[in-house]
């Protein structure tokens, strides 16, 4: 039996939530933008009014202001967006237990087995969800309905805002296939260029190209795209919240001023590693690999990684690895504008670990206990209630609170 899958997409999610919370913004060009003071000065989301004036997501705030003098830019309020995301999920879960989040603003809902007992078709459920988003949350969503996740996602993008699109086995060749290839999940910029160069412009073109040829051009990925374009994707809707399905935990930051020496980097890495370690502990995970990312003030960036001897959730150990990597790979040709730390190859904290005869294991346990205690103090009294002495050396850099400031991550499809 064919499945019935909904993909629900919150239209201009962040901007619409801001509008839903402040009616005085209604009808005005408005955008959610990063903090200029902290130099995260880009547009994260914008309303239709701002879009009509040519404002684009991802451009610098000053560029947006140039096109649209009266644009209202508000700083992001992630706790608010997370709350709305959760409320949307609560609605979905009234229709199915199979709800899979894809970022904060997108979700798949598999209603195959719910339609009988609800006595509703997939389309009716889609419309009810769309209407409830407006009446209960004050935001619009667009919904795609299809028999596979890929086409359902294309559907939510096909007509918006506040619309429902249905792709069936009868209409997909006339509706999905003429869409540009880059609309397909998995066709990014690089793949698009490769495909276009070979005359592949639409999703239909991908579908009708032989899999072996696609594999030749794009390796394994070519086969995926062929399956996607033909509506043959059978991957299930796996119930996950937006915070789950973690493959790595990382934090990066564009610092309030350029970093010019090892000490600056150490201070910033300290704050970032503490945040990564706290989040590892929150999720009961240990990282086996540490990766650092560096971007200089000419925006050239690169990443380096190393494997740890033992998986860890201790900030000090992450920091030592990060500094080791940094000293090995950076020669200070230019000041740094943004740096990041990531723990990868995650394993559960319940995994057995090979102990070391010569290392002081007790000390590690003590350190972990100490850091967990700090977590608790911060939970009760706020992040800045307790800080490492190092961070007070430079108020500007050390005041960073990456854990609360940015914990939103896009997730991959696989």
């Amino acid at each position: 039996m064919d499945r019935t899958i909904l993909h629900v997409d919150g239209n201009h999610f962040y901007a619409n939530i801001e509008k839903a919370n402040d009616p005085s913004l209604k009808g005005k060009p408005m955008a959610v933008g990063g903090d200029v003071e902290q130099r995260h000065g880009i547009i994260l989301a914008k309303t239709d009014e701002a879009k009509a004036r040519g404002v684009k997501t991802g451009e610098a705030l000053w560029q947006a202001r140039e096109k649209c003098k009266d644009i209202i830019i508000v700083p992001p309020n992630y706790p608010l967006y997370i709350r709305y995301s959760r409320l949307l999920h609560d609605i979905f879960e009234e229709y199915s237990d199979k709800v899979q989040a894809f970022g904060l603003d997108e979700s798949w809902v598999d209603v195959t087995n719910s339609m009988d007992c609800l006595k509703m078709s997939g389309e009716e459920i889609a419309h009810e969800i769309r209407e409830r988003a407006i009446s209960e949350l004050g935001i619009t969503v667009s919904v795609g309905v299809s028999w596979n996740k890929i086409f359902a996602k294309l559907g939510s993008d096909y007509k918006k805002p506040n619309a429902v699109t249905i792709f069936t086995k009868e209409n997909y060749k006339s509706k999905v296939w003429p869409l540009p290839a880059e609309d397909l999940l998995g066709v990014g910029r690089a793949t698009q260029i490769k495909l276009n160069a070979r005359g592949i412009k639409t999703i239909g073109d991908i579908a009708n190209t032989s899999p072996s040829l696609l594999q030749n051009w794009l390796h394994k990925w070519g086969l995926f795209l062929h399956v996607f374009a033909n509506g043959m994707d059978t991957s299930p809707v796996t119930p996950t919240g937006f915070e789950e399905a973690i493959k790595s935990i990382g934090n990066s930051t564009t610092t309030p001023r350029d970093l010019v020496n090892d000490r600056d980097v150490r201070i910033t890495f300290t704050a970032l590693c503490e945040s990564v370690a706290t989040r590892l502990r929150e999720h009961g995970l240990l990282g086996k690999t540490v990766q650092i990312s560096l971007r200089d003030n000419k925006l050239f960036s690169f990443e380096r990684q190393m494997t740890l001897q033992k998986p860890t959730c201790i900030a000090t150990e992450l920091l030592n690895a990060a500094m080791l990597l940094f000293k090995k790979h950076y020669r200070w040709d230019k000041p740094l504008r943004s740096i990041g730390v990531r723990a990868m190859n995650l394993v559960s904290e319940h995994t057995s670990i090979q102990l070391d005869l010569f290392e002081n294991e007790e000390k590690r346990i003590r350190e972990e206990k100490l850091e967990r205690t700090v977590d608790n103090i911060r939970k009760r009294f706020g992040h800045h209630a307790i800080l490492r002495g190092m961070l007070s050396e430079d108020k500007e850099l050390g005041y960073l609170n990456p854990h609360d400031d940015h914990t939103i991550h896009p997730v991959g499809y696989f």
Partner: protein
Amino acid sequence: MNDAKVYVDVLVNHMKNGKIIPLCIRWEDGEKYRIDQILDVIRAASTKAGGTGIRYTIRIGNTTSFLFLEEDKWFVERRG
């Protein structure tokens, strides 16, 4: 700023079955109003004041109005 949204103190009865029944509101000026009747309870967005919450349609004397429970705070929409 958004002055259509007025947060208020509310005297509430938490029932043993989990229901939450607001009994009395204290307005900004300190004046207290007893809620005579709850006509409807539904999750809804506030179109006038913004935000979303559990919306109680309440009757105080001869007037009906909305009272929102937004997570752990209560607000009403300012008339005007």
